[in-house]
């Protein structure tokens, strides 16, 4: 048949799918295999949330901010309530602060396990992906038992939390921690701290030196991997975290060196998994009895907020880094005049774009995955050859292939002996 038409169908999965949150475009200029310039273009998923927020009241906004991101839905909710509480001077019961800390750490565990798997996938170790994502099911089940949903658990309300953590939940969480400590963490540590191929592949890839990290305001594990001792829970003395003894984790405590590469960021994540479990146990020990919210009903909160005047900033250390929400009151109405949110991926993206200059194209997927962006960021990459000026679009598949090929070059035996890291997890053979 003459003039055959090629149909190329692209199915967008999102914006609700938790892994595909922010499509971004990286325009990379290449000289041979070396990257000489990286440009970022955002806005493929612009939903106009700020404009919607001006038309809603404070309680309705709780549900809007939760849907910014599926993975850190609790973080956004938590940060927003803190901003409103600061604006109106609302006190939060102590038990509610402990519940917030526990749910926040559960979320950190599931986010870090997700990212460890994604990085494993980016270098071709799909076994790591299966291991960590299967382990992640356990914490998601717990979150479902407490909040009713696997994502968007709607725990926070203004002046407290909406649900209590009961004894049966406490038992399940402690059992889960025992399972992670004994079954999962030794395997994760073996892969990310001691495996020679992983080390060869992740060392010196996507290096962000401390100077660049400060200059570009890197956040979260990206900043701590570069040696900045910065953790909002610790800096800001947030809620009851000073009682729980949070300290920023840097790779120095594990490996003795700080290079600021992908390996260091992964080491920070492994360390934070240990830390999160400790925090949860400590929180259960110290948690007092009492009420969990200040206002019995939402309309009571709205009446109080109607009189509020002023502005508030809420900050919280989400699994990916610092989240900031800003709220300015509109006196006499029950909605805000301005609401603005900043998620940690935004500054991290520019930091990693700067860090990619001089690296190889095969390191792009793993470097971008290592800042834990809301993935689908590697959606499309445009590559410009600096000699010929020809522009070609690489899909995620092409990029992953380049990355996996590099791993095969380093260790050709991976395919031959997959059972080297093949593990059983909860009785299920992977």
């Amino acid at each position, binding site marked *: 048949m003459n003039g055959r038409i090629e149909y190329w169908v692209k199915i967008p999965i999102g914006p609700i799918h938790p892994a595909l949150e922010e499509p971004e475009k990286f325009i990379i200029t290449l000289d041979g295999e070396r990257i000489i310039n990286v440009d970022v273009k955002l806005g493929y998923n612009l939903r106009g949330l*700020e*404009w919607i927020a001006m038309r809603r009241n404070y309680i309705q906004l709780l549900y809007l901010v939760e849907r910014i991101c599926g993975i850190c839905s609790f973080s956004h909710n938590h940060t927003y309530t*803190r901003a409103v509480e*600061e604006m109106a001077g609302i006190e939060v019961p102590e038990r509610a602060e402990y519940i917030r800390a526990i749910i926040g750490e559960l979320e950190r565990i599931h986010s870090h396990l997700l990212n460890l798997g994604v990085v494993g996938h980016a270098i071709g170790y799909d076994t790591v992906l299966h291991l960590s994502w299967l382990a992640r099911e356990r914490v998601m089940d717990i979150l479902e038992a407490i909040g009713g949903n696997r994502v968007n658990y709607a725990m926070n309300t203004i002046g407290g939390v909406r649900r209590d953590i009961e004894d049966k939940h406490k038992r399940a969480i402690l059992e889960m921690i025992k399972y992670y400590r004994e079954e999962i963490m030794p395997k994760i540590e073996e892969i990310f701290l001691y495996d020679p191929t992983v080390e060869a592949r992740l060392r010196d890839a996507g290096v962000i030196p401390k100077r660049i990290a*400060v200059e570009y305001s890197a956040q979260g594990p990206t900043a701590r991997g570069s040696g900045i001792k910065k953790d909002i829970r610790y800096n*800001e003395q947030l809620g009851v975290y*000073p009682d729980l003894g949070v300290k920023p984790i840097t790779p120095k405590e594990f490996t003795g060196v700080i290079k600021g590469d992908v390996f260091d960021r992964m080491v920070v994540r492994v360390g934070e998994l240990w830390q999160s479990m400790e925090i949860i146990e400590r929180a259960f020990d110290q948690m007092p009895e009492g009420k969990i919210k200040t206002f019995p009903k939402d309309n009571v909160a709205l009446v109080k907020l109607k009189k509020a005047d002023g502005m508030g900033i809420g900050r919280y250390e989400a699994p990916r880094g*610092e989240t900031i929400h*800003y709220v300015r009151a509109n006196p006499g109405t029950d909605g805000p005049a301005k609401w603005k949110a900043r998620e940690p991926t935004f500054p991290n993206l520019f930091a990693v774009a700067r860090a990619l200059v001089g690296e190889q194209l095969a390191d792009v997927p793993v470097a971008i995955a290592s800042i834990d962006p809301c993935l689908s960021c590697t959606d499309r990459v445009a590559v410009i050859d600096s000699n010929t000026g020809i522009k070609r*679009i690489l899909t995620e598949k092409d990029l992953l292939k380049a990355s996996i090929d590099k791993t095969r070059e380093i260790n050709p035996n991976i395919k031959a002996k997959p059972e080297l890291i093949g593990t059983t997890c909860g009785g299920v053979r992977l």
Partner: protein
Amino acid sequence: MTPEELIKKIKERFEVETHTSQTKTPYPRKRIWIGIDRENFKSLMKYLQEIDPHAQFSIIIGEDRGDYLSATYHLELFCEEEPSLSVAVTTTCPKEDPKIPSLGDVFPSSVPYERENQEFLGIVFEGIPDPRRLFLPDDFPEGVYPLRLDETGITPEMVKNAGHPYKVKKEGS
């Protein structure tokens, strides 16, 4: 350094309005809000960076306040210590002359936020190193600022077919 010491230090050099807000958690925590005119704004930010060379810039909140525009810059000083100082500096500009000096040379991480506010609110950052659009498409009409309060919405002329969604030509053909 305590918040009071910082305010005293700033007030020795600049004429600013300040107030501190305090949260009511088990560990009360102060946040410093500073208002300054746009002429002295850049020198104040440079001074804050002098006080702490590792100051972390986090966000620009651009707002339409009715008859004028305002931009709030949030900084964290002494971020490797506990507790660090959280400072929000607000500067304003009239709508007829919406110009604020760019901080691209003081805090390089502020450039993406400046680009964002430039396209959404129409604040012109003088001396910005990279004035291209970041979020809005390149063919979005000039002079339309979506987050201004007097914005009326999209007119039918602005709506364009973004291309056939299913039929994509093969490369090179």
